[in-house]
Every structure is written in C-alpha cells, then in structure tokens.
C-alpha cells in the first residue's frame, strides 16, 4: 500500500467511526414511537390515526436497555415517544432525554388508580415526566403436577429441591427480586427498598443469586423461552409474568402463578415524550387517547396486563368475562403495597446519602453472575 492509500484508509476509518449527525425523521403529524411489541397494535392505533390525523410509526424494542439506547440515538431527535418501563424511566429523566408533561391535558388522568398518578418511577418532586400506562406483577410460576405442596414463598426458586428445574429472567433488575427476598428473610440487612441497596446489601443479594445459579436451568431472555421451558418439562418453577401463565393455561399446561407472601416486584410502564420532539400536539393526543377506558381495556386484554385507569374494569369484563378481577384491575390499595414497582437503581439512596449501587453496578454484577 502506498502512503496515500494509507491516508485514504485512515480518513475513511475516522469518518465511519464518528456517527453522522442525527437525521431527523419527524415531520408534520407523525409520531415515531419506541414501544414494547404489542403496545401499538393496529386495533387501537388505526382508530387513533383516523380521529387525530397523526400517523404512528413504531419500533419495537427488546429490552429496557435497548429503549434507552434508542431514545439517545441520533442526538435524541429520532423518536418522539417511548413506552418506558420503570427500570428505564429514571435513566431517561436524569439523562434529560424526556420532557415533563402536564396531566391536566389528559382528561382520564383523574380516573387513574391513586398508586399510578405520581409513582416514583415517572414523577420527581411533583413533576410528571410521563403518563402511567399499564402494570403487572412479576409472579412465581410453578407446575401444579410436579411442585407439591404448592409454593407460597419465593424460597421455591432458591431451594435445592428443584435443582436444574428453575428459570428466572435474564435481566439485571432480577437482583431486586433477590433483595426483596432478603428484605423479608434477613431483616438484619435492613433493606427498605429492593432498588436502593448499599454495598453490603447488594453483596448479600448477589451472593443469594450466586447460590441460586447451580439450580438454574436457563436464564430466559424471551417470554416464549420460558413458555417452552415449562411446556417441555425443562423447568417446573420460575419467575414469570402473567402473560406466560395465560399462554400456558390456554395451552392446557398444568401451571399456576401467584404473588408469594414476600410480595413481588412489578413493572409499571409509562408513555414518555422525547425532550426533542417536534410533534408535541400529536404526543398529547396519543397520551389522552391511550388513557381512555376502552383503549386501556383493549390493551390489557391483548397483552395480559393491568390498566391504570380504574374505569377500564367493566369494559374488560365485557371483552373477556372475569378479566378485571383476574388481572387485579379493581384491587384495593393494599394490594399495591406488596408490589414493589421497578425503578432504575441510582446512587442516591433517598436518605440524603449517595452510597447506593447504581444501575451500571447492577449490570456489571449481572454479567459477572452469568459468567
């Protein structure tokens, strides 16, 4: 190679290494959304497009981490909205990727359950950074034929009794499940919130997970993986979402799920608006539309989760008999006390100290754990 060719190659390499400045796709009346698969189903997106004149383009993300990465891609102007789960929302808020929204522009906001109007994963110091959407618990799923007696505690996934037949999600936020277990079983650690762990508490949680590892058949990445594991007898007990239970039960698999006596972690999704959106009008129209009882009920039934709008209950029952109670859409406030909703772990412990393990540490520990 001549000198000139080297120079050419080097120039090319450098040009390619620096990503091109963000190319904005936003133009009049189009919403580019990052969503969980199924969250922008045509059943409710089509009527929205017809009545609002706004076009919806959605990109499905596979994980909360991917959502954060996508929201930041191209300088943050590529996407207008994101259906962020609690383990992503604080990252987006503190990263200044999303903007505050005014709930008074959402007519149905007053019908939301009290726990969902200003939850700590999307509201900070009274400022709303999004509108809550749907939630669900992370349940304990078990095979009713092979797991006897029926479990009542999360100890089922930490006990050697089901060695090699346990499955849990492949997600750093799973550390919170271990912390929740320790919160009830090792009170001397003094864990108050499974997402705010100092280094001693964090180490204890990781140790518990390390002991659990030899019992694990597989850390599942996709809901369909866990369904396969239970259907084929490779797993008999595990941490799950109601979606898997519904699918398996519909398939006549002998499974049941429950919120064990320690309580459970849970997810609460929030529609958030990009700080750089050029379609704020359409975004507000979508926020108002997606909060109406009918759409809330449709999405809940389709996805197997629970709406935050309490008025959705009768419509759910009309769509699928008994579904309101099945998904705890009408549960009393007491029920929510035992659900610890996902939120991004940050260094600030909420007690004025900054000695908690932040999410980067959680991710590192999870990678180390999987090994």
């Amino acid at each position, binding site marked *: 190679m001549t000198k000139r*060719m080297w120079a*050419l*190659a*080097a120039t*090319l*390499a*450098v040009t*390619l*290494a620096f990503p091109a400045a963000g190319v904005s796709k936003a133009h009049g009346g189009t919403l580019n959304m990052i969503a969980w698969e199924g969250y922008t189903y045509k059943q409710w997106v089509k009527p929205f497009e017809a009545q609002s004149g706004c076009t919806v383009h959605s990109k499905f993300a*596979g*994980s909360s*981490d*991917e959502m*954060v*990465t996508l929201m*930041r891609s191209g300088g943050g102007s590529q996407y207008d909205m994101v259906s962020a789960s609690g383990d992503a929302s604080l990252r987006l808020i503190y*990263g200044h990727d999303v903007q505050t929204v005014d709930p008074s522009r959402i007519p149905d906001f007053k019908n939301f359950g009290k726990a969902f109007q200003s939850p700590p994963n999307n509201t900070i110091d009274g400022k709303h950074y999004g509108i809550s959407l749907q939630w669900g618990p992370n349940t304990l799923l078990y095979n009713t034929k092979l797991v006897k007696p029926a479990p009542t505690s999360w100890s089922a996934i930490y006990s050697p009794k089901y060695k*090699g037949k346990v499955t849990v999600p492949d997600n*750093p936020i799973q550390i919170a499940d271990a912390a929740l277990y320790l919160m009830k079983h090792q009170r001397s650690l003094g864990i108050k919130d499974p997402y705010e762990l100092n280094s001693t508490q964090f180490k204890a949680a990781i140790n518990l997970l390390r002991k659990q*590892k*030899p019992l*694990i*058949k*597989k*850390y599942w*990445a996709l809901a369909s*993986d866990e369904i*396969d*594991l239970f259907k*084929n*007898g*490779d797993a008999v007990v595990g941490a799950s979402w109601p979606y898997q239970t519904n699918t398996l039960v519909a398939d006549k698999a002998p499974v049941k799920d429950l919120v064990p006596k320690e309580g459970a972690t849970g997810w609460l999704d929030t529609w958030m608006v990009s700080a750089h959106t050029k379609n704020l009008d359409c975004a507000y129209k979508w926020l108002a539309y997606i909060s109406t009882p009918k759409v809330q009920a449709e999405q809940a039934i389709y996805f197997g989760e629970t709406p935050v709008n309490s008025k959705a209950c009768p419509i759910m029952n009309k769509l699928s008999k008994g579904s309101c109670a099945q998904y705890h859409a009408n549960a009393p406030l007491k029920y929510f006390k035992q659900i610890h909703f996902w939120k991004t772990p940050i260094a600030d412990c909420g007690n004025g100290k900054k000695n908690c393990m*932040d999410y*980067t540490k959680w*991710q*590192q520990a999870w*990678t*180390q754990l*999987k*090994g």
Partner: protein
Amino acid sequence: MSREPRHGARRRLGGALWRRRWLKGLSLLAPPVLAFLVVYVAALVALFISSLWTVDPFTSETIHHWTFDNFRELWHGAVYRNVALRTVTIAAAVTVTDALIAFPFAYFMARVASRRTRALLFVLVLLPLWASYLARVYAWRLILNSHGLLNWSLHGIGLPSANIAYTNTAMWIVFSYIWLPFMILPVYASLERIPHSYIEASRDLGARGFRTLRTVILPLALPGIVAGSIFTFSLTLGDYITPVLIGGASSQFIGNVVYDAVNQSSNLPFGAAFAVVPVLVMGVYLVLARRLGAFDAL
C-alpha cells in the same frame, strides 16, 4: 465530424493501457479493492479505534480519550477469561467433531459413491442450508428438551433420559450439526483431487489400506480439512444466537457479552474491545493454517 476526436481519445486510451499493462490491471481491480477497503477494512479499523475509547457511566456517552482500560478490564476479569475460553474450547471441539464426521463422508462421496449417489449426497448435505438457521436451531430444541424426540427414543429402547437440553453439550451438538456442510465440501474437494494412480502406486508398493490412508490420502487431504476447519472454527467463534437459544445458565459466548455491552450497558467501546479477541484468535489460527498448507491449493 464530431466523432473524430472521440475516436482519437479512445485510441489513445487503448494505446496507453496496452503500453502500461499495470494500468489495465489497476483499473480492473480498483472498484473491488475500493469496496474492500471501505466496507471491510474501514469497519475493522473503526472497531480497533473505538475499542480504545471509554463510556461515561452516568450519561452512557462515549469519551473520545485514548486508553487501554477496556483491555485491562478484559485481561483482569476472570469472567471474561472464562467466556473467551469457553468460546474457543467449544469452537475447537466443534471443529474436531466436524472433521471426524466429514472425512469418511467426503471420502465416500469422492471415491466410492456412484455418480448418482454422489449427486444425491450433495443435495442432502446442502439441503439444510436452504432452511433458516433459526428454524434449524429451534428444531434441535424440540429434539433435545426433556419431553423431546431424544428422550422419547431413549425411553423407547429402555434407556434413561439424557438431560442435555440447555447445556454446553447441547451447544456442541447443535454447532457441529449446523456447520458440518462447511467442512464436508472442502474436504470433498481435496479428496476428489487426489489422482487414483497415487493410491494404486501405494498399493503396488505393498501398503495396506490403513497405511495408504495415513501416508498418502490424509496428507493430501489435510489442506481441505484445514480449510474446512477455518469455516467451522470461525463461524462458531462468532456466533451468539445458539448460546441464547440452546445454552443453559453458564453458556455465554464472546458474542453474547459484546451484545450485552452494546445493548444493555450502551458500552460500545467495551464490546469493541472484546470483539478484538476473536479477531486475534482467528489471526493466530490462520497463520497456523497457512503453515499446514491450507492455502497452497488456492
């Protein structure tokens, strides 16, 4: 009239190309070489460059500041060493397995089978490549899981079940299956090229079957085996889908750690640093392969 000068220009160009042969070669080669540089080499260079950057843990933004921190972390982290070792070990095991299966198969195809059988075997070898990679991996999941075909057959002949679903053993089997055609074809090509007279000469000189195989056929087929092993080894080394679908609790490959670094932690530089490892491993492998004469027949 206006055509005259153009004719002249063309003739002059033709003359220049004729007088300077290298110019002709260059103009023919320039487009592919340029594409190679832009598409291939530049991407590799970008990979190397970004592996020397770091990421701000708070904002996940890339810090363009040269450092070897990523490589230091890789070197000192026992986890990453384990992952790299697991990846290379399984890639090697898959390569050996495929070579052992492919050699007799290719030998039969090249030297024993009739023309029609050979064509049929070719189709059988290539047919799986027409189906999606994912479909084949999922099919293996159905075979290997607890209530799957494997255990069903084992029970049928009165044997206990084999619990190999979602283990590294399962990954080894699936990889060996998926990359087998890439071993069979080069081995077949090298075996087919051995003149029959060599084998006759060996027999005339009193060598029995095994001796002929060991001293005549194997050395001549070795470049083919090594060429095939480059495929099976590098394809396994770079895979990250089969570990997710077939692997168990401790089955991460280098590719999976890279994927998590980019998608979970938004840490592209660390992913790039780890991605350099298979490039280096492959480099060493290719040098060894060259020594063994894998490229002599090219």
